[in-house]
């Protein structure tokens, strides 16, 4: 026999947790938390995804190489988001004395109607 065989109750427990977390994420979405609503929803999604990856996809019982490859995906996703947002979120923070922020870089972030590229 190859591969780890999980007991059925593990699968049922993970399934139940995923259902509960789905119910929680829908309920919390209607509670006004201001800026926190988005991070909370994202954290619950990450928790759910982790459960699926570890137990349904057997990564918990896989070789360290498989774990590394799996981790690579999320590492590079963070690099993609992190580096890109460090640009988009920081635009217009600083203007050099006697100059502009640079051609086309000053983007107002936040209020609707602020089109990208608007000075």
């Amino acid at each position: 026999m190859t591969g780890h065989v999980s007991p059925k109750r593990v699968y049922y427990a993970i399934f139940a947790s995923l259902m509960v977390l789905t119910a929680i994420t829908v309920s919390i979405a209607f509670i006004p938390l201001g800026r926190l609503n988005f991070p909370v929803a994202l954290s619950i999604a990450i928790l759910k995804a982790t459960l699926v990856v570890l137990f349904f996809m057997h990564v918990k019982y896989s070789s360290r190489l498989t774990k590394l490859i799996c981790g690579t995906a999320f590492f590079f996703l963070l690099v993609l988001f992190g580096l890109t947002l460090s640009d988009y979120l920081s635009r217009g923070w600083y203007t050099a004395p006697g100059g502009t922020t640079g051609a086309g870089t000053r983007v107002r972030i936040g209020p609707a109607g602020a089109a990208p590229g608007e000075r």
Partner: protein
Amino acid sequence: MPDGLAAHADLHGHAHDPALQHHFQTLDQQHEAATLGMWVFLVTEVMFFGGLLMAYLIYRIWYPEAWAEGSEELSIALGGFNTVVLITSSLTMALGVRSAQTGTPRATVKWLLITIALGLTFLVVKFFEYKEKWDLNHIPGPNFIFEGRPDLAPHLEIFYSLYFGLTGLHALHMVVGVSILSVVAWMAYRRRFTPNWYTPVEISGLYWHFVDVVWIFLFPLLYLVDRARQVS
């Protein structure tokens, strides 16, 4: 399986499990290579969806109001129902892989057919969601109309472009997944799998769970944007 072993030994003049391919030394190594290869593919899939999610993130930061308005038009009931359907299909898929591991092919066929049925249910619900958007002229393009907030229409078109891009790509993966599972179910019906070799079940299972993980992110990102604003 001594019989198979003997038969195989006759053919080749050397004895090993018939499920073990010649370029692997052990069944465990063969299993490891297959799952590792699938994971490498799934990493490329993460990057594939990652680009769209990056675009989603930037535009959501730029146009929060359009995101809230657009998301409100999506049905939490249908999206939530589909989430439940997909998570249930992940459970039946996991049980299908388990039944292949324990050598119960009848159960494998049963679980795979249930998984396929749940996948098709998801796609049917998705079709009716798209149909509604079509009827409301919420498809980005020259005929796009958003009656509630016409001033936000250009930004809402971006929201709906990403909605259709992300869910459309996800639905395409579901169609591919259902097709793959149909073949695997047929193989299970023909008793092709043993506890020593069930690679297609395991690999297609990984793919199916990955598609589930994508939806786990898409549901809150598209359906649950700023819903608290209606309450306050």
